[in-house]
């Protein structure tokens, strides 16, 4: 069985936006379901390693709310986030707000996700618009991967430097 891995592109756009693009090896109906059905969301929207998405509720209608609660298995600590749907044009477009219970970035964000299918591949674009420039930059600069992998990244950089100079 061949395993498909799409290319993820992440760009900072203007002062307040992050744009992610990624292609998936399926039609847009299926991909849209993976973004909107709790039992499917739970199976991928977690991480890094050691985290799980324990609570996931979705009321998929304009004005309806969604809520995610992630759990860190090591110490049982939890992190919750949620928002409401502003626009639902399934399976082409989804607009929702996002804010975290313990706001680690100022204000709320507006997520616009579009699904474009071309010959069996679905191209997903997630545009995240933050309320403030500070919000966007906080997110971009946060060490999201936790200490361990940060250290590995640093180690990797160091090793690369050392091997280049030898």
């Amino acid at each position, binding site marked *: 069985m061949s395993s498909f891995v799409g290319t993820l592109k992440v760009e900072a756009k203007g002062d307040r936006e992050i744009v*992610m693009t990624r292609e*998936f090896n399926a039609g847009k109906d299926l*991909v849209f379901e993976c973004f909107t059905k709790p039992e499917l969301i739970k199976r991928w929207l977690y*991480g890094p390693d050691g985290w799980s998405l324990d609570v996931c509720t979705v009321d998929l209608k304009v004005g309806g709310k969604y809520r995610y609660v992630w759990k860190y298995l090591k110490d049982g600590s939890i992190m919750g986030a949620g928002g409401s749907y502003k626009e639902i*044009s399934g399976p082409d477009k989804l607009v929702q707000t996002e804010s975290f219970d313990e706001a680690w970035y100022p204000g709320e964000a507006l997520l616009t996700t579009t699904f474009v299918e071309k010959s069996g591949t679905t191209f997903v674009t997630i545009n995240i618009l933050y309320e403030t420039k500070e919000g966007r930059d906080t997110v971009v600069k946060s060490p999201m*991967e936790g200490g361990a992998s940060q250290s590995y990244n640093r180690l990797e950089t160091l090793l690369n430097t050392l091997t280049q100079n030898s």
Partner: protein
Amino acid sequence: MNHALSQSARLDVTFAALSDPTRRAILARLANGEVSVMDLAKPFSMSQPAISKHLKVLEKAGLISGIKDAQKRLRKLEAKPLEEATEWLENYRKFWEGRFNRLDSLIEELKLSKRPSPKHKNKKGE
């Protein structure tokens, strides 16, 4: 130059400098080598003072530097601040990459199970 600033403050300056399309175009131009201020201004329908203002912002952010050639007023690209900004985005990218790779596997599994998916018809006056 902003060596004295914290990494976070430096990034603020870098992102702010990169937030303008004209300034990004200037950097793209300099990626091919040193260019004089005169030549930099040419492709833009902008006065030289306006271009000079953008150059000042880029210089403050450490993204470009002037070359001591008073005659030609050359400018060149400085890679380090750009690398730093890219590195942060790369962290963010890695964070999401794990999630999306899992989604790839889930999609393959769903396709195999060939469960006919219930079609939601959200007809909104197409």
